[in-house]
């Protein structure tokens, strides 16, 4: 017999809830990390300069 909620769901509620919260936390952590990383690549950073040099021909030293 198929039931919408099997008894096993009730038994595993705590575990599933914990795993769900952990995954949500991981998403927030990865997102926060991405924002922090991107915000450190400001004007004048080495990564930004290298990127601009490679795509912007008007920058001195950039590709023509």
């Amino acid at each position: 017999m198929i039931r919408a909620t099997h008894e096993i769901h009730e038994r595993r509620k705590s575990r599933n809830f914990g795993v769900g919260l952990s995954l949500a936390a991981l998403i927030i952590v990865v997102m926060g990390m991405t924002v922090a990383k991107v915000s450190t690549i400001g004007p004048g950073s080495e990564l930004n300069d290298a990127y601009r040099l490679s795509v912007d021909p008007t920058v001195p030293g950039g590709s023509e």
Partner: protein
Amino acid sequence: MSDINAFDRPYEPTFKDYFDLLKPRVMSLVVFTALVGLLVAPTGVNPVLGFVAILFIAIGAGASGALNMWWDADIDAVMSRTAKRPIPSGRVTEGEALGVGVALSGLSVMMLALAANLLAAALLAFTIFFYAVVYSMWLKRATPQNIVIGGAAGAFPPMIGWVVATGSVSVEAWLMFALIFLWTPPHFWALALFMKDDYHKSGVPMLTVTHGHDATRKHIFVYAVLLAVFAIAMAFSSIGGPIFLITAVILNARFCWGCWGIFKRTTEAAKADEYKTEKHVFRQSLWYTLLHFAALLGDAALRSAGLWDGWL
């Protein structure tokens, strides 16, 4: 086996049962020492990246704890101190512990590489390998020096914290490593003394089992003296300062006095008062690391406030 009831088991593990595999109390010390390693470093870290780095250093340490529980489940079942751990108590299966350990090891190393740098991630991977393989699989059941060499695993977190901030391993990182490395043997041997027959029953060749209690008492005192000399000298390093010096002098004097008390005692005297001195020194040793690292943090705060500019 297609029936969902095939997954029935006498006890359904909760999330906390899996969390207990990570040795939360050990993790809390790892978090603190790694955080101090990160904060006393001369270079600053973005607070979000610093938080993520500490979080995954802690998860990596927890993962190595889960792998240790998987490998040592047979020993844990015999010892009264560890018999209530998730595997011997039947709450979690060995395979589940292995799965949690391997998955979290991979995740933590990968995330630390992304949040900090490759060297920090490599050190975390090595720490997990050292604890799970070198200590648990190779040393623990083979030599009475298990805890001496294995202590390195617990000593790596402040070094990893330092590397997160600076990107390299320097003398200061090794000093923090050495403080925990030298502290580990007297800490665990004091525990082994009042654990009575636990290690004997489990067949783990702790110093108390292979060389007896008297030799262990002597070792505890010798290590305490070595530790005291090192800790006080560390106060004069670039990460030390007046707070660390005062803390080290007081704590090491107390610790050496306690270990002298252990050294002077006989097993009969210890049995008579139910290992009162040994238990006292063990509790004291828990505060020892915590307060030394708090003192490092205090001196770093003095330096950053411009109130302290080194000994010279």
